[in-house]
């Protein structure tokens, strides 16, 4: 899933540009959107709201023309997780100026991670090109779905996964986040080499690896490995080998951003 958000001051045409972007993007894949709203979607105290209020985790209101799914979420990341779970190719977010998401900014609005500045005359094609240039946000769920689409999966008796996450507490130090930098072209090549080497091992059906870069907050995912194998014995060997080789061979570096300061992890170890 590729994510792009459209931000701008009030009444600068955010929704108009989102409409243009979505109608162009849908030619390239499925699109989901997230809209920041100050207005309540459903009246509090109505019958539908009473369902949620009585303790339901999710309530779906169904009308003769459409449905609305309500759950207790108030942030953009939770909304994006929902879209990722839906399996859409593109997520378009309107608003959430304070988020770290890549942004198309209308006019002179200030925000972090602005990847393009446009005015109201921007065409759907121009906006879609910006969205398509964004990095693919891969989830473990995407990789599991992909490995199951492999026709060879019929030879597999097990799927194993490894997820590396940002450790928050260690040695009396509290980590806020890790910042990952990558030598992209070479990292891609070496990850592909690890995947193909491991796939050549006896009994291994498929190996998928994805390593994220940029700032990753404490508790969030860093790296995913998915291995499908004929038998569990072969699977665990390949899974371990995959993470060990990533740590040894792939040109990616991490900087610890702790409560007490910042440092490169390789500097501490050497």
């Amino acid at each position: 899933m590729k994510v792009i958000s459209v931000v701008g001051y009030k009444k600068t045409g955010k929704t108009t540009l989102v409409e243009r972007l979505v109608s162009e993007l849908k030619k390239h894949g499925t699109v989901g959107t997230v809209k920041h709203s100050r207005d309540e979607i459903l009246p509090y105290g109505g019958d539908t709201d009473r369902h949620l209020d009585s303790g339901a985790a999710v309530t779906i209101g169904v009308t003769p023309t459409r449905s609305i799914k309500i759950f207790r979420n108030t942030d953009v990341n939770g909304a994006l997780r929902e879209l990722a779970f839906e399996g859409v190719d593109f997520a378009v977010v309107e608003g959430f100026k304070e988020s770290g998401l890549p942004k198309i900014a209308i006019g002179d609005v200030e925000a972090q991670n602005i990847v393009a500045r446009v005015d109201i005359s921007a065409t759907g094609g121009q906006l879609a090109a910006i969205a398509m240039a964004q990095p693919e946000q891969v989830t473990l769920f995407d990789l599991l779905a992909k490995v199951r689409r492999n026709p060879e999966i019929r030879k597999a008796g097990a799927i194993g996964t490894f997820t590396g996450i940002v450790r928050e507490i260690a040695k009396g130090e509290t980590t806020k986040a890790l910042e990952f930098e990558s030598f992209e072209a070479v990292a891609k090549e070496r990850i592909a080499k690890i995947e193909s080497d491991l796939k050549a091992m006896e009994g291994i059906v498929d190996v998928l690896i994805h390593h994220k870069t940029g700032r990753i907050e404490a508790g969030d995912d860093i790296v995913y490995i998915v291995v499908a194998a004929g038998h569990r014995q072969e699977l665990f060997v390949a899974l371990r080998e995959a993470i060990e080789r990533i740590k040894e061979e792939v040109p990616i570096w991490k900087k610890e951003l702790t409560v007490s300061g910042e440092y490169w992890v390789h500097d501490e170890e050497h």
Partner: protein
Amino acid sequence: MIFMMIRFRLFANFREAAKQKDVDVAVSGGNTISDAIKALLARYPAMEPMMFQDGRLKQYVNVLLNGQTVKGEQIASMTVKDGDEIALFPPVSGG
């Protein structure tokens, strides 16, 4: 006289020391990888203690010439040509 432009790609604390990711350096003193690195360090002396010890490149410095790993003696013997790309980086720490 040899004169060529070499594109350096720097990562992690090496990038921070140069305050730049990609640096084009004119190399004229010699044509080995080691000569090119010396030309880079002449421009960014702050990087020298990170990379050099006793006139030699520190063991932990990774060198890639046009994407291919270069090791040990090759650094002093392998030649570069105009337009080559040398990547320099510290030990990796992904995962």
